[in-house]
């Protein structure tokens, strides 16, 4: 009896110790539809992994970036899994701030990840983050307005066609503007759009010696084209329009075309929020015939900071959230249109997913972007709509202000480019890139 009681007591203590040692993962993530959906599906993970609990820290992108950068740089260990973008991964991976994911099990099928996305998350052969969803940019246009203008959108339009179509679709009296593009200053706002656009005009940020190239004819042509087109057919106050402002304009039927993130396709075709949900068509981002399109590449990815004490549990979570099984789970619970796009080839091979109206165009857009070879000429950097160096955020924010001022008409195109050239040269010299 005494022995039995002793055994029972010991078992209880062991059981309690088991409960007490349950690991809690702290996961930092951005506030967007796909991530919120993942939070709601956490029970599936905890059911499959007893002993691991999950705490979410959801923040706006810029706040999140500041917090996780501070934490990872100081090895603060506040987070076990971080949501980061394709800009951070190469820089942080090179600095040794992230745990390599090369040892994920074979069942994860890493080869299924789209090559363009995988390339952006790999440094020297080491995969440092697993993509949760990937995006490029494309043309989202109003089929009814295009028809009314007597035009037909090609699958792969040129910039000149877009400009002409925008002019034809514009009806300023009715509050309809042919084209809505980002104008708000910011490295993730107008600079992302204009850098990708400039790539298609043959422009680049730096030559092989890291010398800034804003004084080139290609940059002048790209910026002039953008500003002239916006003046002809863009909405008023475009210099303060970012993603969300253009999304609002498009959803309320005020834009003929919107060139922006592929992820927006699900928003503009959602009848709950969009008044033009059934009138949207999609095409590849425009080009000028030089071999590069004006589309970017981005992936919100899950990475494990090197400072975490819970690496094994964190890997289990990353594996779950970026697996084929997770995509199937979302499809089952929320429908195929809500599956995180742009990460796995198998998703696009699925006939059910092929029925989603923007699926093919998203895949084609992602496949046409190459972060390791983003421009017409050879460049020393990685990144399509950014340059993956730590100094880029600061420089691009200042450059974005120049471009935004040129769009608003408070500075000339020549002055904006001259200022961009000057401030970039100064920053790059100070950072030691230019000797």
């Amino acid at each position: 009896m005494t022995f039995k009681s002793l055994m029972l007591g010991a078992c209880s203590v062991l059981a309690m110790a088991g409960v007490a040692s349950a690991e809690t993962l702290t996961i930092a993530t951005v506030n967007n539809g796909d991530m919120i959906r993942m939070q709601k599906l956490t029970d599936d993970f905890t059911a499959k992994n007893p002993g691991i609990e999950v705490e979410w820290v959801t923040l706006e992108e810029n706040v999140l970036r500041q917090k996780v950068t501070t934490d990872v740089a100081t090895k603060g260990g506040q987070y076990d899994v971080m949501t980061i973008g394709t800009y951070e991964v190469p820089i942080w991976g090179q600095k040794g701030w992230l745990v390599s994911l090369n040892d994920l099990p074979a069942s994860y099928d890493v080869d299924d990840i789209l090559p363009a996305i995988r390339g952006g998350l790999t440094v020297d052969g080491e995969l440092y983050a697993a993509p949760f969803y990937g995006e490029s940019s494309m043309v989202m246009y109003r089929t009814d307005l295009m028809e009314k203008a007597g035009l037909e959108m090609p699958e792969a339009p040129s910039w000149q066609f877009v400009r002409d179509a925008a002019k034809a679709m514009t009806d300023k009296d009715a509050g309809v503007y042919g084209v809505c593009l980002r104008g708000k200053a910011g490295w993730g706002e107008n600079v992302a759009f204009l850098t990708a656009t400039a790539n298609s005009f043959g422009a680049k940020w730096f030559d092989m010696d890291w010398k800034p190239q804003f004084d080139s004819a290609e940059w002048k042509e790209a910026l002039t084209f953008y500003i002239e087109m916006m003046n002809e057919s863009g909405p008023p106050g475009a210099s303060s329009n970012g993603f969300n402002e253009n999304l609002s304009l498009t959803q309320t039927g005020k834009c003929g075309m919107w060139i922006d993130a592929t992820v927006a396709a699900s928003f503009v075709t959602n009848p709950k929020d969009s008044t033009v949900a059934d009138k949207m068509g999609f095409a590849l981002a425009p080009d000028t015939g030089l071999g590069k399109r004006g589309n970017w590449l981005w992936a919100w990815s899950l990475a494990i900071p090197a400072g975490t004490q819970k690496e094994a549990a964190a890997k289990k979570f990353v594996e779950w959230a970026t697996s084929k099984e997770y995509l199937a789970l979302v499809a089952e619970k929320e429908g195929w249109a809500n599956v995180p796009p742009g990460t796995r080839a198998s998703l696009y091979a699925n006939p059910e997913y092929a029925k989603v109206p923007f699926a093919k165009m998203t895949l084609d857009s992602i496949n046409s972007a190459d972060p390791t070879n983003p421009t017409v000429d050879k460049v020393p950097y990685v990144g399509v709509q950014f340059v993956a160096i730590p100094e880029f955020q600061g420089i691009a924010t200042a450059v974005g202000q120049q471009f935004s001022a040129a769009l608003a008409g408070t500075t000339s195109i020549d002055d904006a480019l001259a200022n961009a050239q000057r401030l970039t040269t100064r920053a790059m010299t100070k950072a030691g890139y230019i000797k």
Partner: protein
Amino acid sequence: MARAVTTRRKAAFTLCAWAIGLTIFFPILWTVLTSFKTEAQAIADPPTLLFFQWTTENYSEVLGRSNYFRHFANSVIISVGSTILGLIIAIPAAWSMAFVPAKRTKDVLMWMLSTKMLPPVGVLIPIYLIFRDTGLLDSRIGLVIVMTLINLPIIVWMLFTYFKEIPGEILEAARMDGATLWSEIIYVLTPMAVPGIASTMLLNIILAWNEAFWTLNLTTTNAAPLTAFIASYSSPEGLFYAKLSAASAMAIAPILIMGWFSQKQLVRGLTFGAVK
């Protein structure tokens, strides 16, 4: 005639005051109205003021997604805790500066104020490292310490201004009656300065409640107050205005109600000594 002019002036001033008051209050009103709209209505152009389909969906969504009450409790603990700790330090400090000033008292006061001029981000990394090494990251006690330190100059300055208004002779009389230093501060000075201390306390609670730099950077889950709760509803990609408005309304409601009930005390304290 003179009376008519006075009445007209009074009416004009009243109208003007109401116009200013409503203008200042409008953003809060708009936030509350938006919180009852759908995301599509929130971005409608032209915007609708009152005639829309009212919904509480955003509040349900926000309450379902976040642990509001944990954030609320953290905000209360951090703002009240830092205010009490600040007062414990500031009352003796302000007493000494007001009643036994030294040659450099003014310089010390100015130096204290100058610490408020430093951009907080300039000391983020050192403080983050100290917090990391002392295990204070994401702890309420850590936040209480930081909030106390950043608001201490304001508390000392406000209390110093109130204490200066109290005649030194009263304290001298207490001393002659045999009061010790502490009983002089606790039993004589503090009761006389209650209005000033109360308004300082209220202002400090409001400042600590609204502080969003340190509370966002030094917390993750356990100690995250309502500022972190609001920040989780903003998004650069996607519609969020209605849900963000609901989160904001829920975050500001407690402090707004407290401000409403204590506005008389607050205004009295803030204008104390302004007119002599």
